[in-house]
């Protein structure tokens, strides 16, 4: 990496992030680099700190120590407008559907472009500028949801809604997609499709995609790299074909069982 001036900064670099809630140390100084064109799956038991890691990465939470750099910019050093502009490089996709249910799929996708719109042009919540709508339509087409553009988000199925959320990330022109259990609420077929879409965004569009998953088999099948997490630290970080079944099982051994 970093072979000269042409090589851009990696989209996401996390270094030594620590986070505690009261007595509870949730992240014990973790580091990772996410590259373009890569789908990284994060596996780990409930409460091991996966969501906290994601939230620290985009400063929805402030870490106690360490840094997160998005496309070369240290988020902790930024405030206000510059923080917003830097954050724009990242998009989040949550397990629970993060769409405004009362608005159409198209409007939700258009919202991805808000950061690029002046306040004056974004005051109207009913009419987005034509170029934003065009971009949103392209994003919807990219995820195969163009025909549902006018449907209210609250009436979409889980799998459809998750694709629309991904389309919003696409419309945002984000470099990094951070997905927290994007397929946990989906049936196996829909989960498969969403994972294929995420992998394709990484491989065809060159995005950097990080997905927290609770389904090891999906991770092994779709990801380029698998990160095992346990008790706020990384247990392994390997290519899927290098991960041994015991290593995955060890992630889910509860503390009282291990004793």
């Amino acid at each position, binding site marked *: 990496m970093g072979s000269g001036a042409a090589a851009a900064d990696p989209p996401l670099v996390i270094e030594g992030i620590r986070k505690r809630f009261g007595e509870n140390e949730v992240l014990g100084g973790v580091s990772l680099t996410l590259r373009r064109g890569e789908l990284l799956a994060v596996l780990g038991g409930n409460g091991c700190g996966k969501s906290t890691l994601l939230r620290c990465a*985009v400063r*929805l939470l402030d870490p106690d120590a360490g840094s997160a750099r998005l496309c070369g910019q240290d988020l902790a050093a930024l405030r206000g*407008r510059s923080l*917003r*502009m830097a*954050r*724009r490089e*990242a*998009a*989040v*996709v*949550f397990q*629970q*559907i*993060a*769409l*405004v*249910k*009362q*608005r159409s799929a198209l409007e939700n996708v258009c*919202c*991805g472009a*808000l*950061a690029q*719109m002046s*306040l004056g042009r*974004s*005051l109207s*919540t009913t009419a987005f500028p034509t170029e934003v709508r065009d971009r949103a339509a392209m994003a919807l087409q990219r995820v195969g949801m163009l025909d549902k553009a006018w449907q209210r988000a609250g009436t979409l199925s889980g799998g459809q809604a998750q694709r629309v*959320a991904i389309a*919003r*990330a696409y419309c*945002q022109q*984000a470099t990094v997609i951070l997905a927290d259990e994007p397929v946990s609420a989906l049936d196996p077929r829909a989960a498969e499709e969403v994972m294929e879409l995420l992998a394709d965004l990484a491989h065809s569009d060159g995005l950097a995609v990080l997905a927290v998953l609770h389904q090891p088999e999906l991770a092994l099948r779709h990801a380029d790299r698998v990160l095992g997490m346990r008790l706020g630290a990384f247990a392994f970080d390997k290519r899927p074909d290098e991960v041994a079944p015991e290593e995955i099982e060890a992630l889910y051994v509860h503390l009282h069982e291990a004793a």
Partner: protein
Amino acid sequence: MSIDAPIGAAGPGATATPRLPPRTRATRSRLIAYGAVAVVLGLLIFSWIDAQGSVTQFFDGLFARKGLFRDVVPHSLPPDLSALWGGVRAAVTTLAIAILSIAFGLIGAIAMLPLAARNITPSRPLYELARVVQAILRAIPELIMLLFFLIVFGFTPFAAVVALTFHGIGVKGKLFAEAVEEMEMAPVEALRVAGASRIQVFLHAVLPGVRNTLLALTMYRLDANFRSAVTLGAVGGGGIGFLIDNELNAFQFKIVCTYMIVLVVFVLAIERVSTIVRARLNA
């Protein structure tokens, strides 16, 4: 099966009565219950005395020869329908007071919302400030507010509009803020990460998310606002409350009767409209 079957040999048919664990705090909680009843009784007795409750007065007032049912009611019938149009006209003014104050109150409450909801406020002190302001606005009864505004605005229905608006900002501001605090945060966070500004997030994620809830809460307050507008009118704000007060003072009970009919019809109609609109909003 016999009662003294060996332990462990008891099959599914063995139904020795299970021994309940001892109720350790039973006596204490019973004492607390008696204490609570005593306190409530004491409160009631004190209130009766303090509010000058009187059984004889109650029955005299309602049923004696000069009471409500034998004197006022007969003198009120039949209603003087020549006052009907005047009553309707005044009720419309009352409705106008209610509608204007609801509209201004809605704007005021929404304007405070970005500060007053804990999950979207930019700073804790501003949040506390907004909530304190709302609590004060709620704490001052509308009628007392009107007394102050009558001094500065004079006797005009608009004084009632202002009083009801401020009180409404206190009431709706709190209800709205609670609605926002209960909302799903995922869409809000997604837009925040997408680089949207606070105002953009508020306009594009928060407001669309709670819009129907806010409108339903507002409609729910519509008939309450109308009734308040009637009361304020009696004190000098105008509208049908003012007319009722005037005619009562002149002992024109047949006219008052007409006004009361108009009043009840208006309140019931508003309640009905409010219910229908709310059903639509929730759909």
